């Protein structure tokens, strides 16, 4: 599609001889929630890592609003408008909840060394606005988070920490938010609550790309699902379409299962 927000064309990423991602094509449209699924080791996180700039693509293109961003460093990609969360949850443990979110706003704040030292009125005004915005975002996601705004982030409950990582990703008003297994380690009710959050954020206008293993979350929240196996796309479509796709079932359960059915 010509007007996709994120366009990934023939993306390949090799590590030595192994192609973790192999000729992968997909796109995400403005306002969508797209999920990337696939069995373990399919290359999903590698796709994220290439898009977010941790690794350059070995070949292929990544376009954000038509602009090529392949090979840029993570901080530049964030400034272009893609933010993400991590499978392993990477918060700044020794900072408060509020500070964690404020760091996410780093690229939208403008100051230089002298501004930081002398603190002219426009710098302090910026900071104030950033704090209000951060607080508003925390409140929107969960009043509980706002209450704990001055708590050390590592003291929070697990589900709240995941939510906080989300807040940090959202505050910069990104064009695209990539969530890498956001419900990993959550119990079913927490995962359900998180699903609600995802829907609400999407309703607010954020475009989301998810990696998820929890298939009920995937099916419940996504408009489109893309399935990856051994680095290649094996299916794409709406949740029901993908659910009944033989190749997908085969990939997850192995050939014998389909043969038996």
């Amino acid at each position, binding site marked *: 599609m010509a007007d996709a927000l994120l366009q990934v064309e023939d993306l390949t990423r090799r590590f030595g001889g192994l192609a973790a991602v192999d000729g992968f094509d997909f796109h995400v449209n403005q306002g969508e929630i797209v999920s990337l699924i696939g069995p373990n080791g399919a290359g999903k996180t590698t796709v994220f890592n290439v898009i*977010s*700039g*941790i690794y350059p693509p070995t070949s292929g293109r990544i376009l954000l609003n038509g602009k090529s961003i392949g090979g840029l*460093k*993570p*901080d530049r990609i*964030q*400034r272009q408008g893609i*933010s*993400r969360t*991590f499978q392993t949850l*990477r*918060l*700044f*443990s*020794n*900072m*408060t909840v*509020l*500070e964690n979110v*404020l*760091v*996410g706003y*780093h*690229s*939208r*704040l403008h*100051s230089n*060394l002298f501004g*930081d*030292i*002398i*603190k002219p009125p426009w*710098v*302090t*005004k910026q*900071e*104030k606005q950033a*704090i209000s915005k951060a607080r508003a975002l925390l409140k929107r996601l969960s009043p509980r988070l706002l209450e704990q*705004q*001055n*708590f*050390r982030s590592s*003291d929070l409950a697990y589900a709240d920490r995941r939510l906080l990582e989300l807040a*940090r990703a959202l505050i*910069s008003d990104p064009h695209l938010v990539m969530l890498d297994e956001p419900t990993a380690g959550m119990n079913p009710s927490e995962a359900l609550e998180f699903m609600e959050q995802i829907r609400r954020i999407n309703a607010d206008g954020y475009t989301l790309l998810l990696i998820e293993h929890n298939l009920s979350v995937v099916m419940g929240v996504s408009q489109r699902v893309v399935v990856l196996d051994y680095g290649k796309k094996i299916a794409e479509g709406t949740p029901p379409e993908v659910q009944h796709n033989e190749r997908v079932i085969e990939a997850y359960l192995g050939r014998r299962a389909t043969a038996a059915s």
Partner: protein
Amino acid sequence: MATAVPVRNPLQVWRENAVARRLFVLVVVIAAFLYPILSTDVVTIYTATLAEVYVLLALGLNIVVGFAGLLDLGYAAFFAIGAYVTAMLASSRLSFGHSNVSTFLFSIGSNGVHINFFLLIPLAAVIAAFFGILFGAPTLRLRGDYLAIVTLGFGEIVPKVIENLGPGNSLGLPNITNGVNNITGIDSPPNVNFWFIHLNFSGLDPRPWYFLGLVIIIISVAIIYRLRNSRLGRSWVAIREDEIAASHAGINITGTRLTAFALGAAFSGFGGLLNASHLGSVSYDQFLFQVSVTILVMVILGGIGSIPGVMVGGAFIAFLNESWLAWVGTKVNDLGTALHPAGGVIGTIGAWLATLPVESAKPMIFGFMLVGVMLLRPQGLIPERRRALEFHPETQHELEEEQEELYTVRTGEI
């Protein structure tokens, strides 16, 4: 506000009360200024002046190690650069030609290069900062321990290079640093006669130096507090905590790291300038690895990342280094001599104490301090505000109060 907190230790109560804190700082500053006026103990004032240099160095290293989490084991290199820049630009070292060009700001010519001290302050800082970037650049992709070793390498290279670029050096270069012959005759600041302030730097009185150092420290501390509570300060903590998450939040890791090195080096440059000018001479062996270690001990002991902490650490180690250890040494030896005549066990202990070289055990004492702090109280004497939480969960309340104050807009906040 959070619900009531069970146990409150004095440090927490302290942190909660912003007014009390400001008052305390004001009292301390006034006392610091009054001290040399009221005291006649010239020796202590002199030691205090040396301590001021140590404190500046500790503050600088704190930016690199404490704020940004980059372990620099060769920090004395920047101290050396600040000192030698001063030495070469404010003495007769670099003399050339047969006549002098003299202005208010500088004079150049056969008498050497003499730049006005107050112009040297920013100059030394800028040059040191430049070297901070130069030495920091190769370390950009390195983690903790490798970074430490590389900085240690630079810390070894700089004094060696200084030593080797003297007269008759093996590279066939002209005499730049005067090598093992040191550089002496470094200028003092011009005398200040302004309003009620009369400072004569050319005599033996340490007081003018003390005041100068105090002013430099106060300005430095103000700058560092501003930095810590800014976007830049946050980005330093972020890269310290998790570099990958930080870069994904839009933080330019390279720039943030280099800025930390540059600023850390700049304060070391101030320290070098002050020291060189005060002592009147510089020698390459003032900047060896032991010095880098000593500054590290100040930061670790005082409280890594904590501005008041490293100042206390710096002052404490300075006095320990320059006078207390020697004093303790003589007292121990005296005790030994007193015990010695008594027979038996006490006499043997006395004999041992009488000749115990306490002062020479300084590295061992520092070593025990480092190991002890790391094993028993890693946050140091005065913990950094953020790290304090790690070890005392009941300090949440105190942090909240500080947070409010931190983010409420007030100019001149401390």
